[in-house]
């Protein structure tokens, strides 16, 4: 089945750009909520790039963004939604099939 966001090969067009894939991979591996700075450091992206890609993923319903405070310091946390996790898992599986066609068949 293909959706508006996925190609016939099972790749998800929203996740496919490397910075977004990197961000999704960090969030998928992390716990429920990952701090913005952790995602930025882990992916090696700039603040503005993380914001931009997080917003695109948020608009697709793949990521949830929450703002709050730790003490008096403002913090932002990112969370991969259930939909985002499903799409990310499917995307990685599709990548594996493309790289190693014999696997899982």
């Amino acid at each position, binding site marked *: 089945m293909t959706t508006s966001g996925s190609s016939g090969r099972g790749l998800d067009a929203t996740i496919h750009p490397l910075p977004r894939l990197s961000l999704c991979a960090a969030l998928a*591996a992390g*716990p429920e909520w990952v701090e913005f700075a952790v995602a930025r450091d882990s992916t090696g992206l700039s603040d503005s790039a993380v914001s931009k890609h997080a917003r695109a993923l948020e608009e697709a319903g793949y990521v949830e963004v929450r703002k709050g405070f730790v003490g008096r310091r403002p913090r932002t946390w990112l969370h991969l939604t259930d939909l985002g996790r499903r799409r990310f898992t499917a995307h990685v599986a599709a990548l*594996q099939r493309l790289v190693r066609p014999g696997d899982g068949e």
Partner: protein
Amino acid sequence: MDEHKRALDEVERQRVAMAARIHLPLWFRCAFCVVWTGLLLAPVLTSHHDRFGLPAFPYVPAFALLLVVVLMSYRRRSGLNVAVRSRAYPALRRHAVGTAAVMGGGALVTWGLTVLDLPLQALPVGLVAGGLATAQVWRVNTGIRDDVLAGR
């Protein structure tokens, strides 16, 4: 093909980076061991402080507060909210019974001995239970890191 391989390598890199970040640092393990053991022994210290040559002090709320501080410090330093609302890593489910047995059982026996007015027995049991609880936390943490690396 190269593009897809690079994408998979990036996923792998993020898993390794997050597993390293989830790794509990030595300071946390030591602090947790001391504070958890203190919390287990707090009731016996409160009721038998004169016997151990300690001053009267609200040990239970003090160690409970210290435990919150240790957990919050880890959260603040790591940037990961793992203590309270972690996602359901398979390792958490796999070790759920063992964790409940070690944490709950240790508390039950130590506090039970305190209630039975056996402070000299409660003391070594509390120390062992604190050590076992720390080992269990470490074991679960290792399992979570394995889950992260395996993409589970």
